[in-house]
Protein backbone atom coordinates (compact mmCIF):
# COMPACT_ATOMS: atom_id res chain seq x y z
CA UNK A 1 0.00 0.00 0.00
CA UNK A 2 1.34 3.35 -0.98
CA UNK A 3 0.51 6.95 -0.09
CA UNK A 4 1.55 10.26 -1.65
CA UNK A 5 2.70 12.85 0.87
CA UNK A 6 5.53 14.62 -0.95
CA UNK A 7 6.08 14.93 -4.71
CA UNK A 8 9.69 13.75 -4.28
CA UNK A 9 8.31 10.28 -3.47
CA UNK A 10 7.48 9.90 -7.15
CA UNK A 11 10.25 9.17 -9.65
CA UNK A 12 10.39 11.07 -12.93
CA UNK A 13 9.22 7.87 -14.63
CA UNK A 14 6.21 7.57 -12.31
CA UNK A 15 5.27 11.22 -12.92
CA UNK A 16 5.48 10.68 -16.66
CA UNK A 17 3.30 7.57 -16.35
CA UNK A 18 0.71 9.59 -14.39
CA UNK A 19 0.76 12.33 -17.02
CA UNK A 20 0.35 9.72 -19.76
CA UNK A 21 -2.55 8.14 -17.88
CA UNK A 22 -4.24 11.53 -17.37
CA UNK A 23 -3.92 12.26 -21.07
CA UNK A 24 -5.37 8.84 -21.89
CA UNK A 25 -8.34 9.57 -19.61
CA UNK A 26 -8.86 12.94 -21.29
CA UNK A 27 -8.77 11.18 -24.66
CA UNK A 28 -11.42 8.57 -23.80
CA UNK A 29 -13.11 9.18 -20.44
CA UNK A 30 -15.74 6.50 -21.06
CA UNK A 31 -13.04 3.81 -20.81
CA UNK A 32 -12.47 4.83 -17.18
CA UNK A 33 -16.06 5.51 -16.06
CA UNK A 34 -16.36 2.25 -14.09
CA UNK A 35 -12.82 1.70 -12.93
CA UNK A 36 -13.58 2.56 -9.30
CA UNK A 37 -17.05 1.07 -9.09
CA UNK A 38 -17.66 0.06 -5.46
CA UNK A 39 -14.68 2.05 -4.14
CA UNK A 40 -14.92 5.01 -1.77
CA UNK A 41 -12.76 8.10 -1.43
CA UNK A 42 -12.79 9.95 1.91
CA UNK A 43 -12.06 13.65 1.60
CA UNK A 44 -10.91 14.85 5.02
CA UNK A 45 -10.60 18.62 4.72
CA UNK A 46 -9.70 20.31 7.99
CA UNK A 47 -9.25 23.60 6.13
CA UNK A 48 -11.45 25.28 3.50
CA UNK A 49 -10.86 24.49 -0.16
CA UNK A 50 -12.90 24.74 -3.33
CA UNK A 51 -10.81 23.38 -6.15
CA UNK A 52 -8.82 20.65 -4.47
CA UNK A 53 -11.72 19.04 -2.64
CA UNK A 54 -14.16 19.30 -5.53
CA UNK A 55 -11.60 18.06 -8.04
CA UNK A 56 -10.88 15.00 -5.88
CA UNK A 57 -14.60 14.36 -5.56
CA UNK A 58 -15.25 14.91 -9.28
CA UNK A 59 -12.29 12.64 -10.08
CA UNK A 60 -13.68 9.80 -7.97
CA UNK A 61 -17.22 10.20 -9.33
CA UNK A 62 -15.92 10.16 -12.91
CA UNK A 63 -14.15 6.90 -12.12
CA UNK A 64 -17.47 5.43 -10.97
CA UNK A 65 -16.64 5.53 -7.26
CA UNK A 66 -18.25 7.21 -4.28
CA UNK A 67 -17.15 9.95 -1.92
CA UNK A 68 -17.62 10.64 1.78
CA UNK A 69 -15.96 13.08 4.13
CA UNK A 70 -16.10 16.55 5.61
CA UNK A 71 -15.05 19.98 4.45
CA UNK A 72 -14.18 21.73 7.71
CA UNK A 73 -12.74 20.54 10.99
CA UNK A 74 -15.74 21.83 12.96
CA UNK A 75 -17.92 19.13 11.40
CA UNK A 76 -15.54 16.31 12.39
CA UNK A 77 -14.46 14.80 15.69
CA UNK A 78 -11.33 16.95 15.48
CA UNK A 79 -13.54 19.61 17.08
CA UNK A 80 -13.79 17.26 20.08
CA UNK A 81 -10.04 16.86 20.20
CA UNK A 82 -9.62 13.64 18.22
CA UNK A 83 -6.08 13.13 16.95
CA UNK A 84 -5.18 12.89 13.27
CA UNK A 85 -3.92 9.35 13.91
CA UNK A 86 -7.25 8.21 15.35
CA UNK A 87 -9.20 9.92 12.58
CA UNK A 88 -7.07 8.12 9.99
CA UNK A 89 -7.55 4.73 11.68
CA UNK A 90 -11.31 5.30 11.88
CA UNK A 91 -11.77 6.46 8.30
CA UNK A 92 -9.71 3.49 7.06
CA UNK A 93 -12.66 1.35 8.18
CA UNK A 94 -15.02 3.20 5.84
CA UNK A 95 -13.02 4.20 2.76
CA UNK A 96 -10.56 2.70 0.28
CA UNK A 97 -8.45 5.84 -0.07
CA UNK A 98 -8.12 9.16 1.79
CA UNK A 99 -7.41 12.68 0.53
CA UNK A 100 -6.48 14.95 3.44
CA UNK A 101 -5.99 18.68 3.75
CA UNK A 102 -4.87 20.01 7.11
CA UNK A 103 -3.57 23.38 8.31
CA UNK A 104 -0.82 21.72 10.35
CA UNK A 105 2.34 20.68 8.52
CA UNK A 106 2.99 16.95 8.65
CA UNK A 107 -0.60 15.97 9.46
CA UNK A 108 -1.09 13.87 6.27
CA UNK A 109 2.16 12.05 7.02
CA UNK A 110 0.84 11.24 10.49
CA UNK A 111 -2.36 9.98 8.85
CA UNK A 112 -0.45 7.81 6.36
CA UNK A 113 1.55 6.18 9.14
CA UNK A 114 -1.66 5.22 10.93
CA UNK A 115 -4.13 4.54 8.12
CA UNK A 116 -4.56 1.13 6.55
CA UNK A 117 -5.50 2.66 3.18
CA UNK A 118 -3.52 5.01 0.90
CA UNK A 119 -3.43 8.67 1.97
CA UNK A 120 -3.02 11.55 -0.47
CA UNK A 121 -1.73 14.83 0.90
CA UNK A 122 -4.15 17.46 -0.41
CA UNK A 123 -2.13 20.27 1.21
CA UNK A 124 -0.64 20.64 4.69
CA UNK A 125 -0.16 24.23 5.82
CA UNK A 126 2.64 25.90 3.92
CA UNK A 127 4.44 22.62 3.44
CA UNK A 128 3.48 20.24 0.60
CA UNK A 129 0.75 20.00 -2.01
CA UNK A 130 1.82 17.22 -4.37
CA UNK A 131 -1.39 16.94 -6.41
CA UNK A 132 -1.18 20.64 -7.23
CA UNK A 133 2.33 19.97 -8.48
CA UNK A 134 1.14 17.06 -10.61
CA UNK A 135 -1.56 19.37 -11.96
CA UNK A 136 1.06 22.01 -12.75
CA UNK A 137 3.29 19.51 -14.52
CA UNK A 138 0.41 18.18 -16.61
CA UNK A 139 -0.55 21.78 -17.47
CA UNK A 140 2.97 22.64 -18.62
CA UNK A 141 3.16 19.41 -20.63
CA UNK A 142 -0.20 20.13 -22.30
CA UNK A 143 0.47 23.82 -22.93
CA UNK A 144 4.14 23.68 -23.93
CA UNK A 145 4.38 20.11 -25.20
CA UNK A 146 7.41 19.42 -22.97
CA UNK A 147 8.80 19.64 -19.45
CA UNK A 148 12.38 20.32 -20.52
CA UNK A 149 14.23 23.39 -21.79
CA UNK A 150 11.97 25.98 -20.21
CA UNK A 151 12.48 29.32 -18.50
CA UNK A 152 9.95 29.33 -15.69
CA UNK A 153 9.12 32.54 -13.81
CA UNK A 154 7.48 32.13 -10.42
CA UNK A 155 6.06 35.32 -8.98
CA UNK A 156 4.54 36.43 -5.67
CA UNK A 157 4.74 34.66 -2.34
CA UNK A 158 7.65 32.28 -2.71
CA UNK A 159 8.18 31.93 1.04
CA UNK A 160 4.90 30.47 2.23
CA UNK A 161 3.59 29.23 -1.13
CA UNK A 162 3.62 25.46 -0.79
CA UNK A 163 2.81 24.97 -4.48
CA UNK A 164 5.93 26.89 -5.37
CA UNK A 165 8.25 24.73 -3.29
CA UNK A 166 6.85 21.50 -4.68
CA UNK A 167 6.90 22.78 -8.26
CA UNK A 168 10.53 23.89 -8.03
CA UNK A 169 11.45 20.55 -6.53
CA UNK A 170 9.67 18.62 -9.31
CA UNK A 171 10.81 20.73 -12.27
CA UNK A 172 14.42 20.72 -11.03
CA UNK A 173 14.63 17.11 -12.13
CA UNK A 174 14.11 18.00 -15.80
CA UNK A 175 16.90 19.00 -18.22
CA UNK A 176 17.28 22.61 -19.28
CA UNK A 177 14.84 24.16 -16.80
CA UNK A 178 15.82 27.61 -15.54
CA UNK A 179 13.96 29.55 -12.85
CA UNK A 180 13.43 33.27 -12.42
CA UNK A 181 12.09 33.78 -8.90
CA UNK A 182 10.25 37.08 -8.57
CA UNK A 183 9.17 38.20 -5.10
CA UNK A 184 9.41 40.97 -2.50
CA UNK A 185 12.54 40.56 -0.35
CA UNK A 186 10.41 39.38 2.60
CA UNK A 187 8.81 36.57 0.59
CA UNK A 188 11.86 35.01 -1.09
CA UNK A 189 12.11 31.22 -1.30
CA UNK A 190 13.24 29.58 1.92
CA UNK A 191 16.80 28.38 2.33
CA UNK A 192 15.89 24.73 2.16
CA UNK A 193 14.61 25.20 -1.39
CA UNK A 194 17.39 27.55 -2.50
CA UNK A 195 20.20 25.44 -1.04
CA UNK A 196 18.62 22.02 -0.68
CA UNK A 197 17.04 21.86 -4.14
CA UNK A 198 18.35 24.49 -6.56
CA UNK A 199 22.01 24.80 -5.57
CA UNK A 200 22.31 21.16 -4.63
CA UNK A 201 21.16 20.07 -8.10
CA UNK A 202 23.02 22.90 -9.93
CA UNK A 203 19.76 24.24 -11.36
CA UNK A 204 20.20 27.73 -12.86
CA UNK A 205 18.08 30.34 -11.10
CA UNK A 206 17.88 34.04 -10.50
CA UNK A 207 16.14 35.90 -7.68
CA UNK A 208 14.70 39.31 -8.47
CA UNK A 209 12.03 41.78 -7.40
CA UNK A 210 11.44 42.91 -11.00
CA UNK A 211 8.49 41.32 -12.83
CA UNK A 212 8.49 43.77 -15.75
CA UNK A 213 12.14 43.17 -16.55
CA UNK A 214 11.82 39.40 -16.28
CA UNK A 215 8.66 38.79 -18.29
CA UNK A 216 10.12 38.92 -21.85
CA UNK A 217 12.37 35.90 -21.26
CA UNK A 218 9.74 33.58 -19.77
CA UNK A 219 8.16 30.49 -21.33
CA UNK A 220 5.92 30.02 -18.29
CA UNK A 221 4.81 32.58 -15.72
CA UNK A 222 3.44 31.02 -12.54
CA UNK A 223 1.63 33.64 -10.47
CA UNK A 224 0.79 33.09 -6.81
CA UNK A 225 -1.39 34.78 -4.23
CA UNK A 226 -0.02 36.32 -1.05
CA UNK A 227 -1.91 34.16 1.43
CA UNK A 228 -3.50 35.97 4.36
CA UNK A 229 -3.77 32.73 6.37
CA UNK A 230 0.02 32.23 6.38
CA UNK A 231 0.71 35.50 8.20
CA UNK A 232 0.64 35.92 11.94
CA UNK A 233 0.71 39.67 11.46
CA UNK A 234 -2.07 41.40 9.48
CA UNK A 235 0.09 44.49 8.85
CA UNK A 236 2.71 42.43 7.00
CA UNK A 237 0.00 40.84 4.87
CA UNK A 238 -1.54 44.16 3.90
CA UNK A 239 1.83 45.62 3.02
CA UNK A 240 2.82 42.74 0.73
CA UNK A 241 -0.40 41.60 -0.93
CA UNK A 242 -0.33 44.11 -3.81
CA UNK A 243 3.33 43.60 -4.69
CA UNK A 244 2.69 42.15 -8.15
CA UNK A 245 -0.36 42.52 -10.37
CA UNK A 246 -0.27 41.02 -13.86
CA UNK A 247 -2.04 43.31 -16.32
CA UNK A 248 -2.63 43.35 -20.08
CA UNK A 249 0.05 46.03 -20.37
CA UNK A 250 2.60 43.73 -18.71
CA UNK A 251 1.50 40.84 -20.95
CA UNK A 252 2.38 43.02 -23.95
CA UNK A 253 6.06 42.46 -23.21
CA UNK A 254 5.72 38.67 -22.90
CA UNK A 255 6.37 36.05 -25.57
CA UNK A 256 3.38 35.32 -27.80
CA UNK A 257 3.28 31.75 -26.50
CA UNK A 258 4.08 32.35 -22.83
CA UNK A 259 1.80 30.31 -20.57
CA UNK A 260 0.28 32.04 -17.54
CA UNK A 261 -0.53 29.70 -14.65
CA UNK A 262 -1.95 30.21 -11.17
CA UNK A 263 -2.91 27.61 -8.57
CA UNK A 264 -6.01 29.72 -7.71
CA UNK A 265 -7.83 31.21 -5.93
CA UNK A 266 -6.59 34.58 -7.10
CA UNK A 267 -7.27 37.78 -5.24
CA UNK A 268 -6.03 40.61 -7.43
CA UNK A 269 -2.66 39.42 -8.71
CA UNK A 270 -4.02 38.63 -12.19
CA UNK A 271 -6.29 41.28 -13.68
CA UNK A 272 -9.58 39.91 -15.01
CA UNK A 273 -8.81 41.46 -18.42
CA UNK A 274 -6.23 38.71 -18.95
CA UNK A 275 -8.73 35.86 -18.66
CA UNK A 276 -9.62 36.10 -22.35
CA UNK A 277 -5.94 36.06 -23.43
CA UNK A 278 -5.23 32.63 -24.96
CA UNK A 279 -2.00 32.52 -22.94
CA UNK A 280 -4.02 32.47 -19.71
CA UNK A 281 -4.03 28.76 -18.82
CA UNK A 282 -5.24 28.86 -15.21
CA UNK A 283 -8.76 27.64 -15.84
CA UNK A 284 -7.50 24.87 -18.12
CA UNK A 285 -5.10 24.09 -15.25
CA UNK A 286 -8.14 23.51 -13.01
CA UNK A 287 -9.53 21.01 -15.51
CA UNK A 288 -6.20 19.19 -15.80
CA UNK A 289 -6.21 18.90 -11.99
CA UNK A 290 -9.22 16.60 -12.09
CA UNK A 291 -7.68 14.30 -14.69
CA UNK A 292 -4.32 13.96 -12.94
CA UNK A 293 -6.14 13.14 -9.68
CA UNK A 294 -8.08 10.45 -11.52
CA UNK A 295 -4.78 9.00 -12.71
CA UNK A 296 -3.35 9.18 -9.17
CA UNK A 297 -6.36 7.49 -7.55
CA UNK A 298 -6.06 4.64 -10.06
CA UNK A 299 -2.35 4.29 -9.37
CA UNK A 300 -2.68 4.24 -5.58
CA UNK A 301 -5.60 1.81 -5.72
CA UNK A 302 -3.50 -0.30 -8.11
CA UNK A 303 -6.20 -0.27 -10.78
CA UNK A 304 -4.94 -0.52 -14.37
Amino acid at each position, binding site marked *: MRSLIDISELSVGEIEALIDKAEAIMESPADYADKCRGRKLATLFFEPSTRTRLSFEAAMYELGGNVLGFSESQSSSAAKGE*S*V*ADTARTVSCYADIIAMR*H*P*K*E*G*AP*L*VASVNASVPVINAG*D*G*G*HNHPTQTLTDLLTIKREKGRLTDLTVGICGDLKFGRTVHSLISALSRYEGVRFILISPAELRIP*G*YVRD*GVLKKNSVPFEETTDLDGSIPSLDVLYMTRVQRERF*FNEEDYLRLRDSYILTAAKMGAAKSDMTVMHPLPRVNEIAYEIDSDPRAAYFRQVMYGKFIRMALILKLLEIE
Partner: protein
Amino acid sequence: MKIDAIKDGIVIDHITAGRGMTLYNYLGLDALDCTVALIKNVSSSKMGKKDIIKIDADFGVDTDVLGYVDPGVTVNVIKNGEIVEKKKIELPEILNGVIRCKNPRCITSTEHSLPQRFRLTDPSGPVYRCVWCEARAKTDFDNK
Protein backbone atom coordinates in the same frame (compact mmCIF):
# COMPACT_ATOMS: atom_id res chain seq x y z
CA MET B 1 42.58 20.17 41.52
CA LYS B 2 41.99 16.53 42.42
CA ILE B 3 38.88 14.61 41.48
CA ASP B 4 38.69 10.98 42.55
CA ALA B 5 38.71 8.24 39.95
CA ILE B 6 35.41 6.41 39.65
CA LYS B 7 34.94 2.69 40.16
CA ASP B 8 31.75 1.93 38.20
CA GLY B 9 30.33 4.57 35.94
CA ILE B 10 30.78 6.75 32.89
CA VAL B 11 33.34 9.31 31.82
CA ILE B 12 32.40 11.61 28.97
CA ASP B 13 35.67 12.91 27.62
CA HIS B 14 36.83 15.27 24.87
CA ILE B 15 33.87 17.61 25.32
CA THR B 16 34.42 20.88 23.48
CA ALA B 17 35.45 23.43 26.12
CA GLY B 18 32.42 25.38 27.28
CA ARG B 19 29.88 22.80 26.18
CA GLY B 20 29.98 20.62 29.29
CA MET B 21 27.17 22.51 30.99
CA THR B 22 24.96 22.22 27.89
CA LEU B 23 25.51 18.47 27.88
CA TYR B 24 24.86 18.33 31.62
CA ASN B 25 21.50 19.97 31.08
CA TYR B 26 20.51 17.99 27.97
CA LEU B 27 21.38 14.71 29.71
CA GLY B 28 19.33 15.71 32.76
CA LEU B 29 22.23 15.00 35.11
CA ASP B 30 20.80 17.33 37.73
CA ALA B 31 18.22 14.63 38.44
CA LEU B 32 20.87 12.05 39.45
CA ASP B 33 21.61 11.49 43.13
CA CYS B 34 25.04 9.89 42.56
CA THR B 35 28.29 11.83 42.39
CA VAL B 36 28.58 13.82 39.16
CA ALA B 37 31.62 15.94 38.33
CA LEU B 38 31.67 18.54 35.58
CA ILE B 39 35.24 19.65 35.00
CA LYS B 40 35.75 22.65 32.78
CA ASN B 41 38.75 23.85 30.80
CA VAL B 42 40.97 20.84 31.37
CA SER B 43 44.29 21.08 29.52
CA SER B 44 44.38 18.80 26.50
CA SER B 45 47.26 18.15 24.13
CA LYS B 46 44.85 17.59 21.20
CA MET B 47 42.15 20.14 21.95
CA GLY B 48 43.97 22.80 23.94
CA LYS B 49 41.13 22.86 26.45
CA LYS B 50 38.27 20.46 26.97
CA ASP B 51 35.48 19.67 29.42
CA ILE B 52 34.95 16.30 31.11
CA ILE B 53 31.92 14.83 32.88
CA LYS B 54 32.28 11.96 35.34
CA ILE B 55 29.24 10.07 36.55
CA ASP B 56 29.76 7.71 39.45
CA ALA B 57 26.97 5.27 38.56
CA ASP B 58 25.99 2.80 35.86
CA PHE B 59 24.14 5.44 33.83
CA GLY B 60 22.59 4.66 30.44
CA VAL B 61 23.88 7.73 28.67
CA ASP B 62 21.82 8.92 25.68
CA THR B 63 24.33 8.85 22.83
CA ASP B 64 21.88 10.73 20.55
CA VAL B 65 22.09 13.68 22.92
CA LEU B 66 25.87 13.47 23.01
CA GLY B 67 26.16 13.25 19.24
CA TYR B 68 23.77 16.13 18.72
CA VAL B 69 25.28 18.52 21.26
CA ASP B 70 28.92 17.68 20.70
CA PRO B 71 29.87 15.07 18.07
CA GLY B 72 33.38 13.82 18.69
CA VAL B 73 33.08 13.24 22.43
CA THR B 74 34.16 9.88 23.77
CA VAL B 75 32.31 7.80 26.32
CA ASN B 76 34.37 5.56 28.59
CA VAL B 77 32.50 2.89 30.50
CA ILE B 78 34.25 2.07 33.79
CA LYS B 79 33.83 -1.23 35.63
CA ASN B 80 35.86 -2.03 38.76
CA GLY B 81 38.05 0.97 38.07
CA GLU B 82 38.97 -0.21 34.54
CA ILE B 83 37.85 1.14 31.16
CA VAL B 84 35.85 -1.73 29.64
CA GLU B 85 34.41 0.15 26.67
CA LYS B 86 35.41 3.28 24.79
CA LYS B 87 32.98 4.79 22.27
CA LYS B 88 33.57 7.73 19.96
CA ILE B 89 30.25 9.46 19.40
CA GLU B 90 29.20 10.66 15.95
CA LEU B 91 26.28 12.69 14.64
CA PRO B 92 23.15 10.55 14.93
CA GLU B 93 21.08 10.04 11.76
CA ILE B 94 17.83 10.24 13.72
CA LEU B 95 17.16 12.20 16.93
CA ASN B 96 14.37 10.77 19.04
CA GLY B 97 12.96 12.92 21.83
CA VAL B 98 16.08 15.08 22.17
CA ILE B 99 14.73 18.39 20.90
CA ARG B 100 11.29 19.79 20.14
CA CYS B 101 10.07 21.22 16.83
CA LYS B 102 9.61 24.97 17.20
CA ASN B 103 7.57 25.43 14.03
CA PRO B 104 4.18 26.72 15.24
CA ARG B 105 2.57 25.22 12.12
CA CYS B 106 3.92 21.71 12.80
CA ILE B 107 1.37 19.02 13.70
CA THR B 108 3.44 18.30 16.84
CA SER B 109 2.56 21.78 18.13
CA THR B 110 -1.02 20.65 18.73
CA GLU B 111 -0.72 16.85 18.99
CA HIS B 112 1.68 16.42 21.86
CA SER B 113 1.60 12.63 21.89
CA LEU B 114 3.46 12.47 18.56
CA PRO B 115 7.14 11.60 18.88
CA GLN B 116 9.57 14.50 18.47
CA ARG B 117 11.80 13.07 15.77
CA PHE B 118 14.41 14.77 13.58
CA ARG B 119 16.44 13.51 10.63
CA LEU B 120 20.00 14.58 9.76
CA THR B 121 19.72 16.16 6.30
CA ASP B 122 23.11 17.86 6.04
CA PRO B 123 26.01 16.55 8.15
CA SER B 124 28.22 19.51 7.20
CA GLY B 125 25.88 22.00 8.96
CA PRO B 126 24.87 19.94 10.76
CA VAL B 127 21.22 20.38 9.80
CA TYR B 128 18.42 18.39 11.41
CA ARG B 129 14.86 18.62 10.14
CA CYS B 130 11.61 17.57 11.78
CA VAL B 131 10.40 14.34 10.15
CA TRP B 132 6.81 15.64 10.18
CA CYS B 133 7.04 19.22 8.90
CA GLU B 134 10.69 19.35 7.69
CA ALA B 135 11.35 22.57 9.62
CA ARG B 136 15.01 23.04 10.48
CA ALA B 137 15.89 22.40 14.09
CA LYS B 138 16.96 25.50 15.94
CA THR B 139 19.57 24.98 18.63
CA ASP B 140 20.12 27.20 21.60
CA PHE B 141 23.87 26.56 21.41
CA ASP B 142 26.53 26.69 18.70
CA ASN B 143 26.85 23.10 17.45
CA LYS B 144 29.37 23.74 14.69
